[in-house]
């Protein structure tokens, strides 16, 4: 079991306090709303998609430190990526926090996002870390809502 410090690292606490890209994006051509019915977390992702590239990305919403920091860092990581690159990141992040991807052994593009690896030791918190990613993914796909309600067994709250 990880020590507390591994989940609540300074970077995460910092993003929680000062979330980046934390505003409504004027000129967004896609918005998607995500909610976690279990804890009431709710966020909206704004995306400007242009010729297959995520030109700009932002979010607003309420949630715990994990979900806010994850959203903040997600916007930084995905901004400027092509749709395909964003898809790859989404899947890698998802597999990491559900314990399917060993971020140290397998090749991946997660970079700084690896600090969320510790979340997999807290099954009740996996959804907090992945909500923003699911919402971003929904925006990529052109869907208006995302929910953590019907996720696979790996993410079900115990």
């Amino acid at each position: 079991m990880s020590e507390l410090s591994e989940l609540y690292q300074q970077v995460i606490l910092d993003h929680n306090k000062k979330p980046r890209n934390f505003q409504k994006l004027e000129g967004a051509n896609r918005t998607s709303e995500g909610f976690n019915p279990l804890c009431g977390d709710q966020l909206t992702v704004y995306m400007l998609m242009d010729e297959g590239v995520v030109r700009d990305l932002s979010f607003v919403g309420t949630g715990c430190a994990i979900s806010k920091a994850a959203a903040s860092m997600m916007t930084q990581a995905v901004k400027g990526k092509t749709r395909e690159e964003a898809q790859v990141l989404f899947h890698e992040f998802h597999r990491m926090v559900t314990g399917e991807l060993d971020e140290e052994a397998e090749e991946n593009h997660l970079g700084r996002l690896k600090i969320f690896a510790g979340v997999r030791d807290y099954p009740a918190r996996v959804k907090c870390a992945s909500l923003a990613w699911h919402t971003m993914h929904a925006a990529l796909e052109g869907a208006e809502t995302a929910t953590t309600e019907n996720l696979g067994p790996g993410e079900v709250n115990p």
Partner: protein
Amino acid sequence: MAAAEDTIRAGAEAKAWDVERVREDFPVLSQTVNGKPLVYLDNAASAQVPRIVIERGAKYLREEHSNIHRGVHYLSQKATSAYEGAREKVKRFINAREARECIFVRGVTEGINLVMHGYGRKFVREGDEIVVSEMEHHSNLVPWQMLCEEKGARLRVIPMNDEGELVLDEFDGLLNERTKLVCVGHVSNSLGTVNPVKEIVARAHKQGVPVLVDGAQGAPHLKVDVQDLDCDFYAISGHKMFAPTGSGVLYGKAEWLEKMNPFIGGGSMIRTVTFERSTYAAIPDKFEAGTPAIASAIGLGAAIDYLNGIDREAAHAHERELLAYATERLTSIEGVRIIGTAREKASVLGFVIGDVHPHDVGTILDQEGIAIRAGHHCAQPVMQHFGVPATARASFAFYNTKEEVDRLVAAVQKVIEVFA
């Protein structure tokens, strides 16, 4: 007479509560979590189970397991008499007039839904009104919304003040000739408020309106006497009063239960069945279709035995002491806000720490081996009233200690350090 009783009660309260001795009855409490001794403060969600309840359930499975009411054989008779014996214990525990007024259900949620279907769908018509309170658990709110939607009826809400107390002055104004039922919690699971249900029942009855009391948090913390309250329905959940999940009781006055529609149809609840029509069994069987959770019901009976065997006055006094101590210590920490400051409270303590999200509080406390609840506690309108997305909630049982409160306080201080 009253004075003499008071003296006896005061005497009982003064008697020392041997909490270390009581803790030995609860095997789950002696484990470590994350390398630290478990501090279990999530009793309002589910309370722990004493050894005699565990052993009673095991004995049933080992020696008596069988279907009830259906067999003429030895085991079935053993199981039936244990199950009906548990019903008798419940009857005495809540002081019902008769055991047949106690329907075994899965818990409060099922009990309330039974009343919604059995009473609500039969007696509520378009334009009628159902009264609930602002602090209800979703299980005493959502079924009534469903009924109102189906019938074109209207939901009226008794408001609460910022202490988390019902504003009774507004209650009388909500009652009228269209009011068909008042549904109110005995003790709020998010705020700890003890509601004046006896007074509410008296006022409702003056207008001829029956009252359902959600006793999920009442039964574990208060002495319940349904005849004294004079409520028409009272619902309890076994898992909140030291029994296994799957056990619960809906008490209803026989005159109502007899008039009501059955809830779930099937075996055991019928008298005769033909393809043209079926007639229903008498209460309580009419409401107990199918094979019930027999082991759980027997476990509830054993939990009641346990509660009868301890000094409950002293137990409740100990809980109140823990609540007062924890309230005082948490209040003195800068940044901590108590949610729910009613004058009459049971040992349920909701709080928030600055703008730290309660889920983060819950995770950090878990790392310290402390189990609390974080979330909206199935009472989203309460969260809306206080302008918070969620709260952290510590809820105490008579087996908790002052040292555990100290550990809670230290962990809260740690949260503040992490998020400083």
